[in-house]
C-alpha cells in the first residue's frame, strides 16, 4: 500500500515489527501501519514479522532506493537493541543514518507493559506518529574518531587484577598495575586452599604473582592509589599517588635484617591482625615486589608540637628497648642538652600526647632525663662531621640555650662556632637563673663539654658591645654573628621603699646563689611574683636559711604563670602563697626593710587579655619581713648591639629580626632566644638557635634563606589507638622528702628507676608507627633504607582502565549475639584462613587461641562450628547472597578434619547449600562423606554460658534444626563466622574517580547484567572481579579475562568512534557565563579566555544535556536532541 504525497518534499517510510509475537500479541501491528500510512509525508508504511532480520533490512534498503525515501522510522524493540542495525541499513542505501533514521520503541514501552490490546495499539500509534513527526527535523551528523593509547591501567592487584594484567601484557601491550598494599596477591593469597579442588592458594597464586612481577610489559605500582582521572576512552590521563616506601626498591634484597632491629610492632593487616609485624615489613614472604616497606604515618603530635622537632616517639621507644645511648643519639639529632631539657623543659609535647585519651600522657620529659642520665657523656661518640675549612667560623653572643643550640647545630654542620659569654660561667639563664636543686650544674657542664668535643669553642668573661663590637667580630673573620644574650634585666616595682637594704632582685639573687657569690638573706622573706622565677626564688630563700617565706602575687591561683607542679612543690616546702595582692609600699626602718603593705588586686588583665592590673585600694594588708625579693619579670639586655649600626629594636625593646630566618636588619647578623622573642620557654630558645643555624648555614653558602627551608611535620593520620589498651598510671618522679630538701641544693627529683622508665616508655602508643629511630639504617647492608623519601604523584597515559579493586570481609563485631571480639575462639573466616596458611601465625596449624593473649595459640580444637550467612541473605545487613561462603565453609570444614584429625567434630549451620559450580556439588558430597555434620538452621547465638557441666568452657551454638523442628545447643571449642563479602568502604569515592555507578548492594554496576558484564557507563573503563559483586576465584578470573579482551580490542583497533549526539555551543550566542562548566560532570567544557566563550571538548562530551537544559542564552544544544526535534516529537504525541 504505497501512495504518493507530493505535499512535502520529505519522503518517509514507516515499518513496524511484530518481533515474533513479542509486539504483535498486544499491538495490532497492521492497524498501526495502516494508520501511519495516512499521515502526510509518509510514502510507504509496512508491518513485518522480524524487521531486524536480513529480509527485514532489505525491505528498507529496497524502499529507499525504489521510492526515493529520505527518512525512515522503525517501530520495534528498544533502540539499545537495534538502532544501530537500522541506521546501518539506511547508510547502505546511501542516506546519512543520523539524518534519515529514527527508532520508536513499541516493545519495552508498549507491548510488554500494557495489558489491554486496544490501549497498546493506540499507544503504539501515538509513539509512531511522534517519531514520524520528529524524523523530519533531523540533520546530517558525522561521528568523529580518535586514536587510542595502547597502554592499559589495571587498578587492584588481586587475582582479577593480576589475571587481567597478564592477559593484556601477553597481547603485547603495556600495563600499569596499581596496588594499594605493599604487595600484589589480594585476598586469594591470604587463603590456604581453594575449593573445590583443594589447590593450595599459594601454589597456584604465587606463580601468577611472579609472572606479573617478571613480565617486562607490566609495571607494578604498589603502595599506590589512583587519585584522579581525566580524558576519555582511548586517551586517559591518570594521576597516581605513590606513597613513600622508605626503602629503595632497587637496592632492597629482601633479606629481612632490618626487622631484627625495628622496635615497633603492630598487627599485620595481611594476617588480619592474628600476628604482629614490625614497622619495617613485608606482608608475607612471597610478596611481590619482594621489597620491604616502612609503615610510617604522620609524625606523632609530640614531635609536631616540640618547637625543636625532637623525635619523641623515637627516643621513648629506644628507652623502652633499653637502648639508652641510641635514645640519646636520636634526641641529639634535633636537640642539644637532653639532660638539661629533661629537667627544665615545660614539655608542650605532653599536653598533646594521645595516651592522654586512654589515661594520662606519657611522662616524656622524665624519660628524656632518664636517657641522658644513663649514658657516659665523657665517652659518648660525637657524630662523624665533615669539618669545614677553619675560616668558616661563626660568632655566637651569649651562651644561653639559644646560643648553645645555634653553636651546636653549626658544629654539627662542620662550622667553627665560638660562643662569647659575658659572665664567668656558661649557660646563660640555665646556669644563672635555675637553682641547682632543679638543674644540677654538673648536668649542664657534661652536656656543654660534649658540644665542645664536637667543635664548639666557648669564651667566658667576653662581653660583646661597646668596645668589642659586632663589627669587630666581622673584621676578625667571623662569617656570621648570632645574638642571644637573653633577658637578664629585671623589672622593678616602682614603689616607695624599693631601694631599702634588704630589697633584692630575684634573678640577681638566684645568680649570686648559683655562682656562690653571695646570697645572704634574712629570717623572714617576702617574694613578689607568681611565675616560675618567683617560685625558685622562694624555694632558694628557704634553703638559704629564711625560716618564714611568703609569696605574694597579683594573679589568682589559677592565673599564676608558674606550673602547677612547681606551685605544689613550693607549698610542700612550707612556703605560703598569697594570691591577688599588689604591693602598695615597702615599709622601712631606717635604711632597712621592716615590712610591706599590699592592696587588693581585682583584675590582672584587661578585656584584651593585656597585663593591666586594677586594684581596690580600700582593702589592704601588711606583713613584717626583713627581706623582699622582687621576681616580677625580666627584659632583654640589648647592650650587645652597642657600637654597631643597622640592627633595629622593636617597640618592646627587643631585637627586630625576620620571624622565619631570624636575620636582623644587618646582613649576617641573626638573633634568637629571649633577646628576640621576649620571655619565653627554654625549648623555644633552643628551637630559635636551631633555626638560626639553618639560616647561617644558608647565608654562608650564599643560598636563599627562605626557599625550600625544611617544613615542620604535620597531619593527623596516626595509628589508631589500639582496642583494649590496659589503663596504666603515668610514672611518678621519685623525689626527696620535703624535710630533706630544705637547706640542701641536692636535686629534688631523683630520677626514674630503670624499671620505671622502661614501663613508662612502653605506655607510648607509637602514633607514627615507624618511630624513625633509624636502627634499621645501619642494619641494612644494601643501604636501601631511605627515611627521607616523600609521597609522589606520577602521571600515566593510558587508553583503557580495568577496575579490579576487590571486596572486604564484613566485620561481625556489631552482631553482638555471635560474641566476635569478646569470645577469643570465635574467629572471622579470614582469620581462620590465616591460621591454616603456612605463612600465618601458627605456620599452618589450626590451633585454639590463648584466651589471655590473642597472639598465642594452644592446641588443636576437638570441635569446630562454621556458621553460614553471617551478614549475607539478611536484610538487616546485606540482602544479597555472598555466593562463596557455602563452598569455603565446606573447604574449611575439610581442613579441620584433615589437620586436626578425623575424630574432630565439625558442624556447618546453614540455611540453604549453594553448590552451583563445576565440581561443587561433588565436593559437598565428599565433605559430608568425611563426617562433617550439616545442620539446617541459621545459628542465632554463640554463648559461653554453660547450662550443664558438659558445656563448661565451651562455646555453645544455638540454632533451630529446622528439619526436625527442635532447638539445638551444640557445644564446640571453636566457632568460625562465615561473614558477607561486602563492597570496599571507599567504593563510592572510587566510583566517582572512575566515573562508575554503584548498584543497590553497593558494588560497582556493570553496563548490562547479562550482555555487558564488564563494561561500565564510562567508555574505556571495565570491571573485573569482586568489586562488581561477590564472586569466587574461577568467576573472578573469567571476568578478568573478559575485561582484558575489551581493553585489547580497544588497543588493537587503535581508534575509537565517538557518537555525534553531543553538546554544541553556538559561539555567536554564548555570553561566556560559564555556568555550564560547573554543571558538566564529565569536565567536557572549557572556557576560551581569548574569545570569552565556553567550548565543548567533543571527545569528552557524553551528550547528557545538562548544559543545554540550563544555558540561559540558549547557546548550548545537544545535537540530535534540538528543540525542533523534541517539540516535533511532543506535537506528534499531542496530535490525536
Amino acid at each position, binding site marked *: 500500500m504505497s501512495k504518493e504525497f507530493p505535499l512535502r518534499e520529505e519522503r518517509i517510510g514507516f515499518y513496524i515489527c511484530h518481533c515474533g509475537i513479542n509486539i504483535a500479541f498486544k499491538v495490532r501491528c497492521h492497524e498501526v501501519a495502516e494508520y501511519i500510512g495516512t499521515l502526510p509525508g509518509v510514502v510507504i508504511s509496512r508491518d513485518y514479522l522480524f524487521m531486524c532480520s536480513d529480509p527485514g533490512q532489505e525491505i528498507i534498503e529496497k524502499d529507499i532506493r525504489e521510492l526515493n525515501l529520505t527518512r525512515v522510522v522503525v517501530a520495534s524493540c528498544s533502540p539499545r537493541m537495534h538502532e544501530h542495525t537500522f541506521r546501518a541499513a539506511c547508510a547502505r542505501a546511501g542516506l546519512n543514518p543520523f539524518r534519515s533514521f529514527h527508532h520508536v520503541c513499541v516493545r519495552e514501552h508498549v507491548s510488554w507493559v500494557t495489558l489491554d490490546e486496544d490501549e497498546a495499539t493506540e499507544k503504539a500509534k501515538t509513539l509512531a506518529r511522534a517519531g514520524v513527526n520528529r524524523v523530519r527535523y533531523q540533520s546530517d551528523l558525522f561521528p568523529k574518531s580518535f586514536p587510542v593509547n595502547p597502554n592499559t591501567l589495571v587498578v587492584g592487584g588481586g587475582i582479577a587484577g593480576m589475571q587481567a594484567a597478564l592477559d593484556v601484557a601477553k597481547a603485547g601491550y603495556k600495563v600499569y598495575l596499581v596496588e594499594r598494599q605493599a604487595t600484589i596477591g589480594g585476598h586469594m593469597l591470604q587463603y590456604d586452599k581453594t575449593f573445590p579442588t583443594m589447590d593450595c592458594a599459594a601454589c597456584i597464586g604465587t606463580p601468577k604473582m611472579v609472572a606479573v612481577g617478571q613480565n617486562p610489559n607490566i609495571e607494578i605500582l604498589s603502595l599506590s592509589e589512583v587519585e584522579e582521572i581525566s580524558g576519555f576512552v582511548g586517551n586517559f590521563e591518570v594521576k597516581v599517588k605513590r606513597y613513600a616506601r622508605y626503602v629503595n626498591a632497587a637496592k632492597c634484597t629482601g633479606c629481612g635484617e632490618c626487622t631484627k632491629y625495628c622496635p615497633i610492632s603492630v598487627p599485620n593487616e595481611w594476617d588480619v591482625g592474628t600476628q604482629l609485624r614490625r614497622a619495617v615489613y613485608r606482608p608475607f614472604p612471597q610478596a611481590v615486589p619482594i621489597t620491604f616497606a616502612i609503615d610510617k604515618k604522620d609524625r606523632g603530635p609530640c614531635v609536631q608540637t616540640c618547637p625543636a622537632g625532637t623525635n619523641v616517639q623515637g627516643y621513648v621507644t629506644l628507652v623502652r628497648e633499653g637502648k639508652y645511648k641510641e635514645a640519646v643519639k636520636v634526641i641529639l639529632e634535633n636537640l642539644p642538652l637532653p639532660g638539661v631539657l629533661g629537667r627544665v623543659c615545660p614539655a608542650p609535647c605532653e599536653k598533646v600526647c594521645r595516651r592522654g585519651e586512654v589515661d594520662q600522657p606519657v611522662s616524656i620529659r622524665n624519660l628524656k632525663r632518664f636517657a641522658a642520665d644513663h649514658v657516659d657523656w665523657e665517652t659518648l661518640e660525637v657524630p662523624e662531621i665533615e669539618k669545614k675549612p677553619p675560616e668558616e667560623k661563626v660568632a655566637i653572643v651569649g651562651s644561653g640555650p639559644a646560643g648553645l643550640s645555634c653553636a651546636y647545630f653549626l658544629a654539627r654542620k662542620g662550622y667553627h662556632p665560638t660562643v662569647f659569654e659575658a659572665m664567668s660561667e656558661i649557660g646563660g639563664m640555665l646556669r644563672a637563673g635555675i637553682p641547682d636543686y632543679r638543674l644540677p650544674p654538673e648536668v649542664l657542664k657534661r652536656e656543654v663539654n660534649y658540644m665542645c668535643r664536637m667543635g664548639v669553642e666557648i669564651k667566658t668573661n667576653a662581653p660583646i658591645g661597646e668596645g668589642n663590637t659586632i663589627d669587630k667580630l666581622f673584621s676578625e673573620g667571623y662569617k656570621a654573628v648570632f645574638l642571644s644574650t637573653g633577658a637578664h634585666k629585671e623589672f622593678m616595682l616602682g614603689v616607695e621603699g624599693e631601694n631599702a637594704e634588704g630589697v633584692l632582685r630575684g634573678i640577681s639573687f638566684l645568680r649570686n646563689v648559683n655562682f656562690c657569690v653571695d646570697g645572704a638573706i634574712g629570717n623572714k622573706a617576702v617574694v613578689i611574683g607568681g611565675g616560675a622565677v618567683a617560685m625558685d626564688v622562694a624555694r632558694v630563700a628557704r634553703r638559704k636559711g629564711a625560716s618564714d617565706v611568703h609569696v605574694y602575687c597579683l594573679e589568682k591561683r589559677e592565673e599564676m604563670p608558674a606550673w602547677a607542679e612547681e606551685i605544689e612543690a613550693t607549698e610542700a616546702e612550707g612556703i605560703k602563697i598569697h594570691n591577688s595582692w599588689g604591693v602598695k609600699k615597702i615599709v622601712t626602718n631606717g635604711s632597712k626593710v621592716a615590712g610591706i603593705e599590699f592592696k587588693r588586686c581585682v583584675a590582672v588583665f584587661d578585656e584584651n587579655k593585656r597585663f593591666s592590673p586594677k586594684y581596690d585600694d580600700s582593702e589592704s594588708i601588711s606583713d613584717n619581713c626583713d627581706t623582699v625579693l622582687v621576681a616580677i619579670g625580666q627584659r632583654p639586655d640589648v647592650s650587645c648591639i652597642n657600637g654597631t649600626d643597622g640592627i633595629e629594636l622593636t617597640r618592646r625593646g627587643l631585637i627586630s629580626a625576620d620571624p622565619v630566618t631570624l636575620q636582623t636588619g644587618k646582613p649576617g647578623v641573626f638573633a634568637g632566644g629571649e633577646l628576640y622573642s621576649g620571655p619565653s620557654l627554654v625549648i623555644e630558645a633552643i628551637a630559635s638557635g636551631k633555626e638560626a643555624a639553618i639560616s647561617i648555614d644558608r647565608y654562608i653558602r650564599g643560598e636563599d634563606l627562605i626557599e625550600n627551608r625544611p617544613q615542620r611535620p604535620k597531619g593527623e593520620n596516626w595509628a589508631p589507638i589500639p582496642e583494649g589498651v590496659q589503663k596504666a598510671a603515668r610514672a611518678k618522679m621519685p623525689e626527696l622528702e620535703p624535710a630533706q630538701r630544705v637547706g640542701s641544693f641536692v636535686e629534688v627529683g631523683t630520677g626514674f628507676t630503670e624499671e620505671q622508665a622502661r614501663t613508662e616508655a612502653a605506655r607510648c602508643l607509637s602514633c607514627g608507627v615507624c618511630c624513625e629511630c633509624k636502627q634499621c639504617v645501619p642494619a641494612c647492608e644494601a643501604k636501601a633504607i631511605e627515611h627521607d623519601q616523600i609521597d609522589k604523584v606520577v602521571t600515566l597515559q593510558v587508553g583503557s582502565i580495568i577496575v579490579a579493586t576487590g571486596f572486604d570481609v564484613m566485620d561481625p563485631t556489631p552482631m553482638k549475639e555471635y560474641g566476635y571480639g569478646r569470645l577469643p575462639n570465635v574467629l572471622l573466616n579470614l582469620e581462620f584462613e590465616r591460621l591454616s596458611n603456612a605463612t600465618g601465625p601458627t605456620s599452618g596449624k589450626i590451633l585454639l587461641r590463648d584466651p589471655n593473649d590473642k597472639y598465642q595459640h594452644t592446641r588443636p580444637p576437638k570441635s569446630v562450628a562454621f556458621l553460614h550467612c553471617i551478614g549475607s541473605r539478611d536484610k538487616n545487613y546485606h540482602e544479597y547472597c555472598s555466593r562463596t561462603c557455602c563452598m569455603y565453609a565446606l573447604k574449611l570444614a575439610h581442613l579441620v578434619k584433615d589437620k586436626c584429625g578425623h575424630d574432630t567434630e565439625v558442624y556447618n549451620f546453614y540455611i540453604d547449600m549453594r553448590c552451583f559450580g563445576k565440581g561443587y556439588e561433588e565436593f559437598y558430597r565428599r565433605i559430608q562423606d568425611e563426617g562433617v555434620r550439616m545442620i539446617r538452621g541459621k545459628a542465632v547465638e554463640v554463648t559461653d554460658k554453660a547450662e550443664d557441666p558438659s558445656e563448661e568452657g565451651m562455646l555453645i551454638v544455638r540454632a*533451630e534444626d529446622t528439619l526436625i*523442628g527442635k532447638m539445638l545447643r551444640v557445644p564446640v571449642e571453636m566457632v568460625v563466622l562465615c561473614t558477607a563479602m561486602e563492597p570496599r568502604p571507599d567504593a563510592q569515592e572510587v566510583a566517582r574517580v572512575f566515573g562508575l555507578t554503584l548498584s543497590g548492594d553497593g558494588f560497582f554496576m556493570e553496563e548490562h547484567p547479562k550482555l555487558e558484564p564488564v563494561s561500565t557507563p564510562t567508555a574505556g573503563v571495565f570491571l573485573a572481579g569482586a568489586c562488581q559483586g561477590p564472586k569466587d576465584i574461577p568467576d573472578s578470573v573469567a571476568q578478568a579475562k573478559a575485561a582484558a579482551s575489551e581493553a585489547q580490542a580497544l588497543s588493537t583497533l587503535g581508534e575509537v568512534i565517538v557518537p555525534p549526539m553531543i553538546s554544541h555551543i553556538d559561539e555567536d550566542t554564548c555570553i561566556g557565563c560559564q555556568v555550564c562548566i560547573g554543571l558538566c560532570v564529565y569536565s567536557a567544557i572549557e572556557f576560551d579566555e581569548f574569545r570569552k566563550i565556553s567550548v565543548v571538548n567533543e571527545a569528552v562530551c557524553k551528550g547528557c544535556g545538562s548544559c543545554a537544559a540550563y544555558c540561559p542564552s540558549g547557546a548550548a544544544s545537544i545535537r540530535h536532541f534540538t528543540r525542533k526535534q523534541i517539540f516535533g516529537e511532543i506535537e506528534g504525541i499531542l496530535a490525536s
Partner: protein
Amino acid sequence: MASVTPMLEITDAVMEVGGKTLKTCMQCGTCTGVCPWNLVKEFSPRLLIRLVSLGIEGYEEDSLWNCVTCATCVSRCPRQIDIIDVIRATRSVMLESGIVPPLYRVPLSSLRNEGNPWSSPRSERTDWSKNLEIPEFSEATEYLFFACCTHAYDARNKKVLKEVAGMLAKSGVSMGIIGTEESCCGDQAHKCGAFETYTGLQESNTELFAARGVKKIITTSPHCLNLFIKQYEGDFEVTHYTQQFARLIKEGKLTPSKPVPLKVAYHDPCYLGRHNNIYDEPRDVLRSIPGLEYIELPRSRDTSLCCGGGGGGIWSEVEVEKRFSVLRIREAKEAGAQVIATACPFCMIMLEDGLKAAGIDENEMRILDVGELLHESVE
C-alpha cells in the same frame, strides 16, 4: 506416612487479613532460635509460618496463642517478615471461624461493652484523676493525656498513674484528659486477632480525637503508644511519659534532688524498646536520680526479655517455672538489683506476679515504675 494436601484457602484467608510477608520466609529458623519461649518450652514460629503458608493442620494448636508479640523474632528476621502480623492474622482467621480461647472471652466482651478489658464500669474510667486538678482536654491544652485502661483500673498501676500525671502537670506540661468517652486503644484485641472488636474501639477513639482536635498525645502505656503510631489513622504526635520526663529534666523543668539510694535495674518494655526504639529516655530519667545505682541487666535494650504480658499473654495461665517474669526476676536478683524499674502497666502486673510466684520477699526486691522512682526523688 500418610500424605497431606495443602489447603491454600487457609493461606489465602490469612493473607487477606494481613500477614502477607509470610510469603518470603526462607525457613532459616532465626525466629525460633531467638523466641523467648524456647527458654522454657518448645515453640517454633518458623514451623507455624510454614504450616500457615501451606494451610496444613497444626498451626491452629495452642502454640498460636502463645506468642506474646515481644518482637524479638521480628528484630532479627533476615527477611524482615512481620511475624507478629502473621500471627495476628492467623489468630483472626481462627476467631472468625468461631474458635475463641476461653481466656479471651471475658476481656473481649468487656472491651465491647465497657471499652476496657478489665470488666470495670466505663463510668469509673477517670476516678484516678480526682484530687489531681487535671483539666478536661480542650483547645487550650497542648497534649491529650491518654491513660491506659490498666493504669486507670488496676489498683497497683493506679498509684503509678497518679504520680506520673501529677508530676507532668506540676512541671507545667499543658495537658488534659477526655474522660469516660474514650475507650481502650484496642491493642490486646488487635494482637489477639479480634478484628471487629478492635475496629470498633479504634473508630470510636479516632472520631473522638478528631472531634476534640487532638494533635499531641502523651500515652501511659507503651502499647497504646505503639498502636496510635502504627495502626491509628490521624495525624498526631505521640509520646510516652518517660520521653516527657527525660525532656523536662534536660530542660531543667523537673529536678530530681532527693537521693534514692537503691540498686535499680531497668526492664525494657517490648513495646517501648524493640517496637519503638525508645531505649535511652527511661535510662536517662533513672540516671538523673541522685543516689540511685543503675544496673544494666544482661538481657537489655534490643535483647530484653519480655515480661510475658503482651499479645494476650496477660490473660493466659502459665506454669510458674515457665513464666518469663520469674526468669527475669531471677536475672535481676543475680545482677544485684533491689528494684526492677519498668514503664509499662503490663510489665508491672506480670513482674509483681512473678515476684510472688518466685517467692521473693518485698524486702528483697520491688517492682517500681520509672515514674515512681522519679516521684520519690522530686518530692
